[in-house]
């Protein structure tokens, strides 16, 4: 007998360990669900971690209202499939009652408004741990993130004062009113995620696969045409065969030309790709440390 695990099994086992650790160390966790492949993976692993019992925490979707319609259809089906409970925090509703103010202009996005809505939802639900699908390979500020990431009572991250994390010993102790963000798939890369989802035959949103869609170029990035994005006069809409590499809200998710129609095609494409998946995220491009700055404020 050869007692070796391949890298996907080892990553799976690490993530399951973290998810169980969350259930053991916290009173009221919640799993942040965006409808993208990473949160699909985390919720799938959560289902596995507590089998045959149901996962002991609900899913929370912060809904900007500016979604690809496919995302919501998929979300509702997936939640039923894995037998989870779904909570929704609505950005539209927060705008209506004045918690946040809508950005104006061509590049307006509700991405930044999500932080306030998320923090409010965590506070209202008295959640003490929010499980997320962030990965360290995504972005340079995330490369320094812990599995168990402490947030103060304002939901802020202090990157220079993080708790050291050693072996498999996780410190989830906190004062009243503070919470943790937990990232069970920290050590997965984009390619690992795809390989694993393929191996496990997990159903995925159609947006990830090549399809015909009306698109236009903005600042070198291909964007999906949507009623939520006002176009500049010079921006011309054309139909192309594209797919999403990440799924966020319509206003900040770039699409790219691709003919990858199956998950095997996607793996080939990702393995050969010379651009990072967040290369299509306009929200990261606002400055060199855009992600760190947003994370400090309490972003995902």
């Amino acid at each position, binding site marked *: *007998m050869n*007692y*070796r*695990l*391949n*890298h996907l099994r*080892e*990553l*799976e*086992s*690490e993530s*399951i*360990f973290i998810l*169980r*650790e969350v*259930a*053991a160390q916290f009173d009221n966790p919640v799993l942040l669900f965006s409808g993208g492949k990473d949160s699909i993976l985390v919720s799938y692993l959560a289902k*596995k*971690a*507590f*089998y*045959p*019992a*149901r996962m002991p925490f609900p899913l929370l979707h912060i809904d900007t209202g500016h979604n690809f319609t496919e995302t919501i259809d998929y979300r509702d089906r997936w939640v039923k499939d894995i037998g989870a409970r779904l909570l929704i925090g609505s950005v539209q509703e927060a705008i209506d009652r004045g918690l946040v103010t809508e950005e104006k202009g061509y590049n307006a996005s509700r991405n930044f408004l999500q932080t306030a809505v998320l923090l409010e939802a965590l506070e209202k639900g008295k959640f003490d741990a929010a499980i997320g699908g962030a990965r*360290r*390979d995504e*972005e*340079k*500020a995330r*490369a*320094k993130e812990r599995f168990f990431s402490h947030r103060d009572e304002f939901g802020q991250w202090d*990157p*220079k004062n993080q*708790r*050291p*994390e*050693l*072996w*498999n*010993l996780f*410190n989830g*102790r*906190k*004062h009243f009113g503070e919470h943790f963000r937990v990232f069970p798939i920290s*050590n997965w*890369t984009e*390619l690992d995620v795809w390989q694993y989802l*393929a*191996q496990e035959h997990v159903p995925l949103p159609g947006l990830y696969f090549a399809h015909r869609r009306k698109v236009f170029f903005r600042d070198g990035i291909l964007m999906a045409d949507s009623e939520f994005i006002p176009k500049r006069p010079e921006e011309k809409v054309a139909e192309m065969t594209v797919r999403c590499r990440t799924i966020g809200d319509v206003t900040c998710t770039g699409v790219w030309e691709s003919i990858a129609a199956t998950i095997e095609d996607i*793996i*080939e494409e990702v393995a050969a*790709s*010379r*651009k*990072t998946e967040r*290369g299509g995220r306009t929200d990261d491009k606002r400055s*060199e*440390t855009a992600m*760190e*700055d947003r994370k400090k404020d309490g972003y995902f």
Partner: protein
Amino acid sequence: MKNLSSELLRFTTAGSVDDGKSTLIGRLLYDSKSIFEDQYEAVKSASERRGEEGVNLALLTDGLRAEREQGITIDVAYRYFATPKRKFIIADTPGHTQYTRNMVTGASTANVALVLVDARQGVVEQTRRHAIIASLLQIPHLVVCINKMDLVDYSQEKYEEIRAEFEQFASKLDVHDITFIPISALNGDNVVDRSQNTGWYEGATLLYYLEHVHIGSDHNFIYARFPVQYVIRPYNDEFHDYRGYAGRVAGGVLKKGDKVMLLPSGFSSTIEKIDTADGEIEEAFPPLAVTILLKDDLDLSRGDMIVRENNHPTVSQDIELMICWFHERPMQLHGKYEIRHTTQSVRCIVQDIQYKMDVNTLHRNQEDKMLKMNDIARISIRTTKPLFVDAYRKNRTTGSVILIDEGTNETVAAGMVI
């Protein structure tokens, strides 16, 4: 499908501020084609903005605003790359004196430690400190990269001199597998591709070494240890009487039908089933996460441990530790802390500080009882309840602990059972 059967190798890098550690990592990522065009473009334009000559590969790893401003690495950063043979996780830790705690953190899960030596400087204080920490944390394999060979004309004599100096010092350490590689991170010599400039060197390139070093024996497959992490009780009709003990195998191999002993009760039972969401399996080994069902109806909970009858850990309230202190507030002799070990969490009191160890010279100081940030010391503690421990040398999972300050909730120390 691409490399589905590849293994995972975790390594840690340590180096002084200027010996080119970030450049080496940048080089590994760049030459193994793990850097994407947009990342490279971003680094290139950042280098230009800062008025630097060429592309500063170090900017790939220095992510935080403060690090970019000061040009240093503050925290442990994790990097990923893969070749058709293996997937790699790099824990990139800063090298300056005040950040011993980060080095210890990065080293805690590593299979391989990569120590950089500047060929012009030879073995310096920091080199010794890194090697000592690698030995304390029992990293199974140590690679000494003698860097900046281009600046000493790729001199074999220089290489041999440094190698001999390091070997002499390392004979006092608990490390068994040391490899030396002459490299130039800046020019890429012997990093991914074999160098034309070091004809006298017959060993592997760094990447070849990382792809082939034997890590199959890095886990302990002899002493069966299963700390109960979480109890799974579905409470539904289909699984009415299901009571599963979920956890990650911390040592040894557990098989269906094995006679086991439970700690702390000392009761015996038999493994009825090893369950996973993908179905039952016959045996479980580290680091698999599984759910164990026992034949007898016993009341186990988080923190308990399933072991073999004829081979169990030390059950004790008095424990000897080597610790690294992490916090600005010094350790309090006779102070009380929370201690975490596997899935257990109890309180402890520091009974004695035997000696402080100088991480540069291995010198033991028995007079100084003041444990400050980044200090390493041997201490004795007494816990409120027994822990089930193994020596860290035998098992890194059941031999490691962290201490938590109950007032601030901060992790204040990492400890290894002696």
